[in-house]
């Protein structure tokens, strides 16, 4: 299945990513609750890419695992990276005046969550949600 790469350089791009993720989630027959969870996680991660990563991209695709369909979304930026991942994931921690619930929240909203980041080398977050 082919992946779509969407740029994230402005507010309008965050909205576009959300819409594209929603469309794939519907295709993969995720329930309304799961669609909403995935779209919300994507919204958090796309916004972080924009705000903290200085812009980047989202790569989204339908995935299959035996009998189950799902959607995977990867967010990448070449921004400053995250020095302390545990701190960034902690609920309530923000360096930018947010609620500090985006990363931890996104992790709770999806089935698989992976984050790679190094100071000076950007950040990549991958999330997957499976149809039940």
């Amino acid at each position, binding site marked *: 299945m082919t992946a779509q790469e969407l740029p994230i350089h402005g507010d309008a791009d965050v909205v576009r990513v959300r819409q594209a993720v929603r469309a794939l989630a519907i295709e993969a027959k995720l329930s309304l609750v799961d669609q*909403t*969870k995935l779209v919300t996680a994507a*919204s958090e991660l796309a916004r972080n890419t924009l705000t903290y990563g200085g812009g980047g991209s989202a790569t989204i695709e339908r995935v299959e695992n035996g009998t189950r369909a799902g959607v995977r979304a990867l967010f990448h930026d070449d921004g400053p990276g995250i020095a302390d991942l545990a701190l960034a994931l902690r*609920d309530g921690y923000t360096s930018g005046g947010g609620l500090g619930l985006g990363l931890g929240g996104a992790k709770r909203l999806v089935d698989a969550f992976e984050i790679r980041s190094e100071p000076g080398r950007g950040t990549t977050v991958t999330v997957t949600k499976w149809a039940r």
Partner: protein
Amino acid sequence: MTFGNVVERCRQNESELVREWREVVARSLAGRLPAALVEKELRDILDALLGALEAGGGTDPQAEPYAEVRALLVELSRDRAQQGFSPRETAVSVFGLKEAVSKVLGDTDVTGFFRVIDEFGLYTFETYTKAREEVITNQAEQLLELATPVVKLWDGVVALPLVGTLDSARAQVVMEKLLQTLVDTGSEHAIIDITGVPAVDTQVAQHLLRTVVAARLMGAECIISGIRPQIAQTIVALGIEFGDIATKASLADALMLALSRLDVDVNAEIAKRSR
């Protein structure tokens, strides 16, 4: 770059050139702009262009002598963009000069002059695109305003039904509008209904929370309604806490709560109104 005697010959035939040029442009605009107006625009541009070439303008459209030409073209692009003309129709206004020059000057070598015209044609295209973007942005802002109606439900109760994506720009407009309506109507209760919001992320939640706090500072209480099951589950997973802010599943429930806070006896009111 030398232009030979092209500039001089253009000056000698200026009125004829403007006339021919206007003919070309009129063909593409097909009577949607008054001929006299178009003719004046073109005459001014030609005069400025020849003036700049006489002053040694060269082929760089950004060169100093072309300042006036650029200003006139920006104005033309902006007008055309606002009037809804296409980029092609707008660019023809400039490129059309080539046709007029060929016709009027016959076999003179115009290569250098045409190069200058081409540069300005492209310049017009760019300024048109920018102007068009501005027009679209303005329309988007107007839509934003339109999409945020604050309605009065009862004496002292206003409601703000949110529909669509609540991005930062929109959240700001929404908050200001709600606070202004609270002042204008002297209401002490506001219901923010999010039935039409497809997803509530932490940014949307933060905007909602800020609105509620700002309303409180003005002595008004907010109720958030229309929290559908999928949104409720998402909010819980995110870990967002609405604290002591009242939340209700439906707008009707929220209205009942507001009325009870106002000590309104609904049955008595209905009886009174139907009398």
